[in-house]
């Protein structure tokens, strides 16, 4: 019993956002380029281990309470589906890469696959089968789990925690690190704009119509980092690990309304003026006070893109892979317009992990804090 509780404590500790997100992101970058990992066999093992983990965890009452909610069941299913399709796509991608390296066409372009077949019966039957299976799953799902209905709406009684619909919980999780105007309006808009811009920014003609990794290394790594880590993982985090007051609760932890977490977050202006220069900022002009942050943000969006376009520094990662930190290659390939849009979108995406790390390491609240005009970054 003691060992079990220790194990639970370890899991609760490991799922703490700073550790959890860092672990996942590092694992992602270490594994994405490893051919040996993306094999159906390993996928099966990972899936079975995860399933056993979830199944055994349901013995814990606190875990059952949150994961067993009927509305949360599709989210658990999504975790497994995303993992499953990640393995399916990456193992096919690596298989194709090996074929291409041998001088063969990708499997989708092999003579047998490129051959045409009749829509009736081949495609129509596949579609019908998918529909029948879909209906069966929905009906069984509908019979087993009743659609929940809570107490009638009461505007004067705010539930704690109040959560947005589950697919927006990644955005709600961003609220920990950014103000609503960024986390709720600007960044979501940039996600949509960024997705729409993909085909116009990606000028690589290779990898069109078949799974491949080697021919589209950077595109796939960036996209999967955004989709799997910054979207799906944060949805999970927001759904299962955020309780009352949006405090973190481990999967086996009781959602205690009175859990207190010390919040001693500090703005950059306070770091610079008060802690470093021992100045009094209470009467200071807002723009002078926030000058350090303004300069930093201007550097990030105004100078950094230019520096990156100029540099071609190569860095060796612990995994052995070489990563080009400078983006000169891209600037030359994409031209000034495409490059500018591309680099701004990438910087916007990485602003989230950067802000996360700054928060975890330095308790940094805002880089620019101008609550007077609702302008906090």
């Amino acid at each position, binding site marked *: 019993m003691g060992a079990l509780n220790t194990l639970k404590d370890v899991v609760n500790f490991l799922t703490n956002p700073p550790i959890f997100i860092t672990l996942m992101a590092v694992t992602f970058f270490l594994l994405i380029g490893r051919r040996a990992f993306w094999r159906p066999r390993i996928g099966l093992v990972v899936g079975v281990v995860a399933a056993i983990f979830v199944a055994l965890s349901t013995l814990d009452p606190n875990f059952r309470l949150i994961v067993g909610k009927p509305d949360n069941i*599709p989210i658990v299913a*999504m975790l497994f*589906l995303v993992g499953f*399709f990640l393995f*399916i*796509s990456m193992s096919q991608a690596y298989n194709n890469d090996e074929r291409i390296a041998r001088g063969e066409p990708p*499997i*989708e*372009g092999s003579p047998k*696959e*490129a*051959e045409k*077949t*009749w*829509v009736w*019966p*081949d*495609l*129509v039957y*596949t579609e019908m089968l*998918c*529909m029948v299976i*879909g*209906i069966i799953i*929905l*009906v069984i*799902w*509908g019979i087993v789990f*009743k*659609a929940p*209905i809570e107490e009638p*709406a009461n*505007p004067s*009684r705010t*539930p704690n925690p*109040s959560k*947005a*619909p589950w*697919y*927006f919980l990644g955005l709600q999780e961003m609220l920990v690190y950014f103000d*609503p105007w960024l986390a*709720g*309006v*600007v960044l979501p808009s940039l996600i949509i704009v960024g997705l729409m811009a*993909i*085909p*116009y920014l*990606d000028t*690589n003609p*290779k*990898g*069109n*119509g*078949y*799974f491949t990794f080697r021919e589209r290394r950077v595109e*796939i790594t960036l996209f999967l980092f955004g*989709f799997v880590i910054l979207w799906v993982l944060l949805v999970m985090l927001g759904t299962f690990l955020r309780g009352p007051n949006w405090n973190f609760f481990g999967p086996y932890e009781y959602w205690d309304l009175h859990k207190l977490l010390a919040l001693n977050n500090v703005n950059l202006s306070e770091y610079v003026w008060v802690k470093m220069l021992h100045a009094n900022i209470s009467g200071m002009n807002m723009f002078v006070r926030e000058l350090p942050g303004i300069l930093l943000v201007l550097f990030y969006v105004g100078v950094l893109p230019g520096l990156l376009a100029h540099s071609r520094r190569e860095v060796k990662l612990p995994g052995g892979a070489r990563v080009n930190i400078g983006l000169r290659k891209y600037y030359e390939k994409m031209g000034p317009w495409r490059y500018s849009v591309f680099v701004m979108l990438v910087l916007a995406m990485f602003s989230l992990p950067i802000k996360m790390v700054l928060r975890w390491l330095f308790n940094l609240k805002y880089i620019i804090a*101008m609550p007077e*005009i*609702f302008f906090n970054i």
Partner: protein
Amino acid sequence: MATAKPPQPFLSRTWDYITETQIWRSIFRHGMPANNRNRVLVVMSNVFLHLHPVKIRKSGIRLKFTWCMGGLTFFLFLVETFTGLLLMFYYRPTVAYAYMDIIDLAEQVPLGIMREIHRWGAHAMVITVWLHMFRVFMTGSYKPPREFNWNVGVILLVLTLLLSFTGYLLPWDQLAIWAITVGSNMARATPVLGHEGPGSQLLALGDVKMVHAGSDARFALLGGRFVGEGALLRFYVLHCVGIPLVAGILMAVHFWRVRKDGGISGPL
């Protein structure tokens, strides 16, 4: 002396009789699609099947390649339309009735699982549409000539989320109004257009603010200063008519462009 035809089994005689009636022949202009000519005709002469080409590359129907996620998303849209239509018979979008109508539906309709299918189908649709985008990205299928169709797809993805978001409010329980309150509070912080957004102070005539809680983006979204009667009606109309209509039109464009851009993607 002519040899007598051997007697046909009953079922096959009935089948022959039915398929030779004028009614049958007026609907189906060709025989069973058992030979190549009829396989062409069945696709060409049927308004639903003619979304498809007559022949298709084998890799394009391999489940390992397509995951069937686009098809499942469309299928779930149809399921949601059908079950949603049935739910509309029982549901009145007013603060006084909405919640009780849902309770009635659960308690008075025997063996009813329409609301269950509608809700689980909605969750599933959000997931399938993400997985569809995932697959399309991983196979590089947004690359020329399919750039525009990828964009239509992104809009459809956003519309799927909005469909689910607007539907979230309709049961009018605690989960519904507080989820929508949390979600729509973001609109308060819209730059310039939200009353707590950066830049909103700039829009003022002298001392009179133009962007305040009664005129900002959130007010427009909710039809009020909080999630109330106005929001319920707005979300209901958008959920049942507005967004499905736009999504339906865009789906037509999406499917049509799949064909026009060379069918399902494959190596060039």
